[in-house]
């Protein structure tokens, strides 16, 4: 028997195990992951505003994986790609014939001086972890108002639209609580604007203005000064806060960096169309763990896995891989008050306006607020647990399609 080892039983790893398990005679599928529960990360956005609670976003991993796959609950401490083996927490060595790295991305607040201080969890928060979003929910429940600053430390981050969604949901949340006049919302971003793609900027640029969000652009944070309650950029600009919501540096797993397979943020260097390691042909990376220049988002992992299954079958038959992944991403963007947008794009096509046709439930509106998009986002949680993770087909194309999109010359 040959062994396919998947490191990480998150979105990508779970979907892959479910899709591959009955297709690989002569192979065993083993997953390694230190966490016993699967986290629905898109739900973190809603927790601070009391829309979701902890039980909405966790499920035991064992109930989501195929019976015939083996799950080892352990951390990977080292990977030796030359000898095709990984070392686990307690020193156990696990050899593999093929390896898929699906360890995702995680926040690393320690990279920003002053961010992890005694103020962490008090006047400094994040919603980029389950514990963080729960603590922030607790904070917002009794917060009297003031200056709320959202700061993206550095790109790329997971779910790049989440900070914008957080701002728009915060605006609606404080309005609902009749205290919007007591809250100042500030968005400090390293990018030159909140919306940078031409069509999105043209259609959505006004959104944050309308919601009274002040945007501090090209703000590259150097440090937090928790005693003075301010963040300071490399060019010595200061932004004062009463409540700081930070999106810390996102990075891949440390063992990836130590193995020599990673880039400057420990993301596995891969071919962007096949997701095969650029260094070892029996190593692949899926989802946020890969350095493909696609968004770090669950939808991307989903579209990657679809093509990867076909390519992995080709790989074990010693056939050449096909460039099956096109960078496709789509995501619902909450804009507050029960409305949302949908964006759909890939490596070559920016988010465009139009309609996104989907049988039965659609069409959704692209780059335009509507109620159905909001319901689509909420319904997606059910789809995630019951359809997507189980590897069942969704009636949506894997590769991006121009169907329904307005073709506008740029």
């Amino acid at each position, binding site marked *: 028997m040959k062994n396919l080892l998947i490191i990480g039983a998150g979105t990508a790893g779970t979907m892959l195990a479910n899709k591959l398990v009955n297709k690989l005679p002569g192979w065993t599928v083993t997953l390694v992951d230190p966490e016993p529960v699967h986290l629905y990360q898109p739900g973190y956005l809603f927790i601070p505003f009391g829309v979701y609670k902890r039980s909405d976003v966790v499920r035991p991993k064992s109930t989501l994986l195929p019976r015939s796959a083996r799950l080892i609950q352990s951390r990977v401490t080292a990977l030796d790609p030359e000898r095709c083996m990984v070392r686990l927490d307690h020193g156990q060595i696990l050899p593999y014939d093929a390896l898929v790295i699906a360890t995702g991305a995680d926040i690393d607040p320690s990279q920003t001086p002053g961010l992890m201080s005694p103020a962490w969890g008090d006047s400094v928060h994040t919603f980029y972890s389950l514990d963080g979003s729960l603590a922030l929910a607790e904070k917002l429940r009794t917060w009297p108002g003031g200056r709320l600053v959202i700061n993206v430390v550095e790109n*790329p981050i997971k779910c790049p639209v989440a900070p*914008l969604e957080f701002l728009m949901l915060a605006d609606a949340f404080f309005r609902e609580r009749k205290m919007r006049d007591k809250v100042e919302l500030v968005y400090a971003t*390293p990018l030159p604007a909140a*919306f940078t*793609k031409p069509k999105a900027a043209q259609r959505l640029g006004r959104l944050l203005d309308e919601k009274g969000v002040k945007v501090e652009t*090209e703000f590259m944070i*150097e440090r937090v000064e928790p005693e003075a309650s301010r963040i300071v950029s*490399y*060019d010595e600009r200061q932004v004062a806060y009463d409540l700081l919501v930070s999106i810390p540096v996102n990075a891949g797993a440390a063992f990836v960096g130590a193995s020599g397979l990673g880039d*400057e943020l420990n993301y596995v260097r891969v071919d962007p169309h096949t997701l095969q390691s650029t260094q070892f042909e029996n190593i692949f990376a899926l989802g946020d763990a890969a350095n493909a220049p696609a968004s770090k988002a669950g939808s991307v992992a989903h579209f990657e896995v679809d093509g990867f299954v076909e390519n992995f079958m080709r790989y074990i038959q010693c056939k050449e891989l096909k460039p099956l992944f096109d960078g496709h991403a789509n995501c619902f963007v909450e804009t507050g008050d029960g409305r949302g947008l949908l964006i759909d794009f890939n490596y070559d096509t920016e988010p465009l306006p139009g309609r996104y046709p989907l049988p039965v439930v659609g069409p959704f509106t692209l780059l335009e607020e509507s109620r159905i998009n909001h319901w689509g986002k909420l319904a997606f949680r059910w789809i995630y647990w019951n359809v997507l993770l189980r590897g069942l087909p969704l009636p949506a194309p894997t590769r991006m399609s121009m169907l329904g999109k307005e073709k506008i010359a740029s």
Partner: protein
Amino acid sequence: MMVKTIANIPVHVNEEGFLTDASEWTREVAGAIASEEGIADLTPEHWRVIDFCRANRTANGKSPTLRQITTGTGLPTKTLFALFPKGPAKKVARIAGLGKPEGCV
């Protein structure tokens, strides 16, 4: 997209003055854009950054990230801000004839 003459060379630029075709870039064009950006003289340290960005641009002509620049050149972020004041990511991209840093929307 329009054509602009920079350092006596006609180049294609977008509405924000970024070159849309990285192959039209020359070192003279870089010098002229740098003066527009308020950098009178490009020192060897400036060139170390510009050359790194040119060599490590993405397949679709985008500049590397600040972290890739600091890792690749060994220059700390603070130095990049001193060399290219007020937003090195955007300034370096423009001077190096590469696309502006962008998010997904």
